[in-house]
């Protein structure tokens, strides 16, 4: 639409939009800035915005409270593990529902979605007791399995909506061209579905990384990911703003960057394909 927009109008809206966006982003910016301050500067009044002694010491001392690296690795293991496990289970299911739909496929999909609606507290107690009895409390594998199950419906749905965009005729063409099922998947389906699989993976890593019900309730120290580690700052010990900020910055940075790259897929994944 070749509309003429007066520069004044454009400028007004630009200033307004940037102003609001700046306010919304400010807490994150403030956290990052604070992470480079000394503890004294962090609580200085009036607050110091840019002119303070920049220091990296908080990043070094975050380790004091607990081995930060271990929690970071736990987060990676839990996010990646639950996502990959989920994909392994969901790819065949989504493939089959997208390309070989049966009369019940629609019902199965809706039912899978309905499991996502179940509030976690409804199953907290049995899962907690089962985990206690099986020795799975505070283990990575326990959390991985629970997060995988929790996100499985989203993974299946996202993959399903992506797979459905691959025309069935192309797979049939491969079959006519003499491809076995394995070759059909390897040479035709997977390369075409790769972008969809990648975005599904990305979104689920984000969701699993930030999950803060099961990780808080099923881990205490050994297997605690960053969500649980950061929560330990809710009982503060002395001056801690700068260290909290440093720990927070490190915890959110990787996912923030991934999130920015996956905005479009996020919309689609979180609305189960209802908004594209």
């Amino acid at each position, binding site marked *: 639409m070749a509309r003429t927009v007066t520069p004044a109008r454009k400028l007004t809206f630009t200033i307004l939009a940037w102003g609001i966006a700046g306010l919304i982003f400010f807490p994150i910016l403030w956290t990052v800035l604070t992470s480079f301050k000394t503890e004294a500067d962090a609580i200085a009044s009036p607050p110091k915005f840019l002119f303070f002694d920049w220091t990296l010491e908080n990043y070094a001392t975050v380790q004091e409270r607990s081995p930060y690296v271990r929690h970071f690795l736990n987060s990676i293991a839990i996010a990646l593990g639950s996502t990959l496990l989920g994909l392994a289970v969901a790819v065949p299911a989504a493939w089959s529902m997208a390309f070989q739909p049966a009369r019940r496929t629609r019902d199965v999909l809706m039912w899978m979605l309905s499991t996502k609606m179940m509030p976690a507290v409804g199953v907290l107690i049995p899962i907690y007791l089962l985990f206690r009895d099986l020795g799975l409390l505070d283990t990575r594998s326990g959390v991985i399995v629970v997060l995988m199950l929790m996100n499985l419906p989203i993974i299946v749905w996202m993959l399903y909506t992506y797979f459905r965009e691959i025309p069935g*005729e*192309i797979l049939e063409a491969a079959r*006519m*061209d*003499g491809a076995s099922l394995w070759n059909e998947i390897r040479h*035709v389906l997977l390369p075409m579905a790769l972008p969809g699989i990648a975005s599904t993976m990305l979104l689920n890593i984000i969701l699993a990384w930030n999950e803060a019900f099961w990780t808080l309730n099923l881990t205490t120290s050994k297997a605690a990911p960053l969500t649980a580690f950061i929560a330990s700052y809710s009982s503060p010990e002395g001056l801690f703003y700068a260290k909290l900020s440093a720990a927070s910055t490190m915890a959110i940075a990787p996912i923030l960057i991934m999130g920015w790259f996956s905005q479009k897929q996020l919309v689609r994944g979180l609305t189960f394909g209802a908004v594209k």
Partner: protein
Amino acid sequence: MGSITLRRVRKSFDTVEVIPGVDLDIADGEFVVFVGPSGCGKSTLLRLIAGLEDVTDGQILIDGQDVTHAAPSKRRLAMVFQSYALYPHMSVRKNIAFPLKMAGLSAAEQDARVAQAAGILNLTPYLDRRPGQLSGGQRQRVAIGRAIVREPAAFLFDEPLSNLDAALRVNMRVEISQLHKKLATTMVYVTHDQVEAMTMADKIVVLQAGRIEQVGSPLDLYNSPANRFVAGFIGSPNMNFVEGEAAARHGAHAIGVRPEHWQLSTTAGALQGTVGVAEHLGSDTFLHVGLDGGTPIVVRAAGEVPVHHGDRIWLTPQDGRIYRFDAQGLAL
């Protein structure tokens, strides 16, 4: 070699029977066109031959060999799809080579065959492009190229031209006909466009509601349609039907007259009517006439005829060009 035989082939989806039972012989090297309105089962029939669908009952033979339960890849057939179904992530070269790769041919052999097919189809300059960078006609050629490199027993075409614009469609029609002459391989071609059927086929199979209405050469179908459905479907514009008294005079429930078989007069004739629209193309004149009884008639007159909207004219069918049908629609 590529003869195809269907014996009492039936197909139902759940409880809906889409092909109630078809017998058909396709000879080696023949160009057979399945034609019919949408939903008539022509594509399903093709997919049954391809092996992309299971037959519910009956047998499919290729060169006398029973392939009813064989996988698509074991039938030595190649298919060109309506959407072309090119692999978007592969170059044209890789697309064409894909069936050869699947067949385990050496790289050198693949290259040689791809080069040959590209030569035939004028695709050589485009071999390293992706399908997304090609025009509709070029994509169609790649799809055909992918089919011919395999040297299959027969080619199956599923409405291959319906996504092309009108001008390109005429060109591709000619190209496919030439390809058939060159390769002399069996081709089974599905279309809803009777012009494609008439211009390309050795043998036309007219289908309706999963049943074969008539099988024959284009001119057989034009000259002696077996029933009202075939008579109305083959020929463009469609045949006109007149019922009632005018038909009774010929001892039939209905008579059919093709638009090109009317004689025009401003003074006398068998039927009178008023011209609604007159289309003057120079080479032909098409008249849309409303008979006095209300029946609409299309008349195709050769050359320029000075008739206009609102004129009263008389129409008389040419001798020997009247098709007579009984109340069941069968030709008398």
